[in-house]
């Protein structure tokens, strides 16, 4: 069995390494019990109120994700890369950030946007095809969701460095996937961040597949987190389905960055429960048995169990959270059925801050074309009306 299917990760046969066996750091185990201390890597469990908040956000985010996947299947959206199963990484990353910090997400991280307060309609505008990025990036301090892999990691390093140069406290956090770590820009971002001691946190969601390609075809080393050593920064290999661990490690990394101690690389080991996008067919490359294994490690179920056991989640609270999730799903359905007109002439408005004669010409050309179409449509309408009138005249 390839090592990416097995949480116990016995990869010593692949690489002889002087490092300790890679066992993911965790605070709450698969079954919802507090993990033994030797797995906690010195991190403490967040308090129950924090955990309850993370739980609520994960439940709401999952309901949103499932709803959007359904809307995509109904043809309301052109595409949607789901983060089902990855809620712990996504929500922990956002929860670790302050209002002044910047998030640099990818196309798979829509639930991170949701958790940081972006309205569903603005998140989905790009997937519906309205515009390439549909939210107010500055208001939310969220860069556009990056499509070219790992490119946004360099932007995060640059912004973090600017914050440091201006002696401000802003930290940048970027989300990456396992496949993206093969890109040159990931390497350059890790290296620049370490050399410049930039206040930046890299959260790699290792969901084990880059579309269809498993991690053992991306790299030869044991974990992505190990790579941090080579760049001279701390790296953490974390159970990416344990939101308590992801939150504890990410918060600590953010605060370290803020305190001037430089970057951190965090790998969350998780699993992409859905296809890459709606146009993908994972049955061609994944063992369906893996889904069952990972369903048993579900981030929401295990936290639910834990919170119930410590008496921090009542049935009434759970029902309340579910109602909130259902309300959001209903809002999402409603906003996606609303018509969203686009303005073809806006195509020319944002390319440059300084007006260009050539673009003004092309805008006028398109405007004239649109006027002509409108006129034709009007003529056609008149013709139909006249024909209807003539026929009704004959008939009467």
């Amino acid at each position, binding site marked *: 069995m390839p090592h990416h299917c097995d949480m116990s990760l016995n990869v010593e046969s692949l690489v002889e390494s002087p490092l300790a066996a890679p066992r993911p750091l965790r605070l709450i185990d698969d079954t919802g019990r507090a993990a033994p201390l030797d797995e906690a890597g010195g991190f403490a469990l967040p308090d129950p109120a924090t955990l309850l908040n993370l739980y609520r956000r994960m439940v709401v985010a999952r309901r949103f994700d499932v709803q959007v996947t359904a809307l995509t299947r109904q043809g309301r959206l052109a595409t949607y890369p789901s983060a089902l199963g990855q809620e712990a990484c996504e929500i922990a990353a956002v929860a670790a950030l302050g209002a002044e910090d910047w998030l640099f997400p990818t196309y798979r991280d829509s639930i991170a946007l949701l958790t940081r307060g972006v309205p569903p309609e603005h998140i989905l505008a790009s997937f519906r095809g309205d515009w390439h990025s549909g939210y107010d990036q500055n208001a939310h301090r969220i860069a556009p969701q990056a499509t070219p892999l790992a490119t946004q990691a360099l932007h995060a390093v*640059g912004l973090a460095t600017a914050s440091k140069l201006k002696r401000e406290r*802003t930290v*940048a956090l970027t989300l990456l996937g396992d496949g993206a770590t093969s890109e040159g820009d990931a390497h350059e971002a890790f290296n*620049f961040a370490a050399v410049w001691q930039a206040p930046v946190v890299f959260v790699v969601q290792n969901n084990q597949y880059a579309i269809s390609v498993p991690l053992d075809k991306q790299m030869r080393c044991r974990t992505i987190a190990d790579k941090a050593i080579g760049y001279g920064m701390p790296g953490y290999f974390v159970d990416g389905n344990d939101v308590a661990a992801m939150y504890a490690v990410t918060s600590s990394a953010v605060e370290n960055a803020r305190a001037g101690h430089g970057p951190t690389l965090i790998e969350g080991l998780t699993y992409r429960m859905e296809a890459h996008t709606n146009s993908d067919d994972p049955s061609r490359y994944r063992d369906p048995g893996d889904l069952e294994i990972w369903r048993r490690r579900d981030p929401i179920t295990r936290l639910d169990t834990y919170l119930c056991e410590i008496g921090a989640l009542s049935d009434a609270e759970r029902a309340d959270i579910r109602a909130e999730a259902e309300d959001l799903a209903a809002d999402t359905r409603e906003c996606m059925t609303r018509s969203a007109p686009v303005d073809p002439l806006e195509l020319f408005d944002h390319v440059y801050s300084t007006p260009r004669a050539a673009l003004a010409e092309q805008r006028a050309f398109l405007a004239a074309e649109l006027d002509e179409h409108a006129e034709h449509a009007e003529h056609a309408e008149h013709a139909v009306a006249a024909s209807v009138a003539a026929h009704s005249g004959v008939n009467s």
Partner: protein
Amino acid sequence: MTLPDTAPTPLRAPVTLTMAAALNAAIQDAMRNDPTVVLFGEDVGPLGGVFRVTDGLYAEFGESRVSDSPLAESGIVGTAIGMAMYGLRPVVEMQFDAFSYPAFEQIVSHVAKMRNRTRGRIQLPLVIRIPYAGDIGGVEHHSDSSEAYWTATPGLTVVSPSNPADAYSMLREAIACDDPVIFLEPKSRYWAKAELSLPVRTAPMTTAVVLREGTDVTLIAYGPTVKTALATAELAVAEGLSIEVIDLRSLSPFDDETVGASLRKTSRAAVLHEAAQFGGYGAEVAARLTERNFYHLAAPILRITGFDIPYPSPKLEQYFLPTPDRILTALGTWEWN
């Protein structure tokens, strides 16, 4: 566009400056006037750049504003994007034309598109300086003319000065510009000299200028070929040919007005560049001038350019670069009546 000087740069007594020194002064004055201007790249710090364009800036402004980056061009441009998003005005250097290619994705996919992608919410006021073109006896990868890659990309402003005065004025304007600018510096002109009283202000960065008036032919040049065009016009006098020389200065946007007016006057035009002809920038110039001025033309617009081959090694570059002789021969292929 006016320069956003917090305090106007005082006028200094005239001095003789090379283009490299004029570029240096432009960055220095911009940094003195605007604390958000930062400079980084390969060897731009204590060394002052391999062409000494950033000489002395590290000493004056220190590590926080002038720094040597790790040796990775995508990293340089990618981090400059993040800095520009956070209120800085980065000026970065790609050490040589062909070394800008690792940054191609960051430039094409993000620098050029960020403003449009975000409906103008995120502007990227950054300058990417690229020493380009040949005629310096450089080894492979040190003499490319890559301008058509950038001009084919909507969202970029692409300019190239040909003399010290423009070098100063256009770089000041590029740094002050809210849009990203690809600033192409013709290496062979770095040592060209002029007497200047700084801060010199020439025509706006995005306009072409008529450098020499003429009545028979419009010769369109930019960057390194401007000098060749002027030498050609001088030689042509003896042949009774009056050549008007235009320095485009801005490749994107293209100044249709200035170039079109000249063409309608002379009715003949040729465009010069070092880059290969096929799919080169001259093809765009010839096509759009023809589309807009066909009935004023007495002859097809010529492209006099490098051959469609990779840039040659030092002993062979003299056969590759357009010379005044080659230009005059090409103009002689037109029917003159």
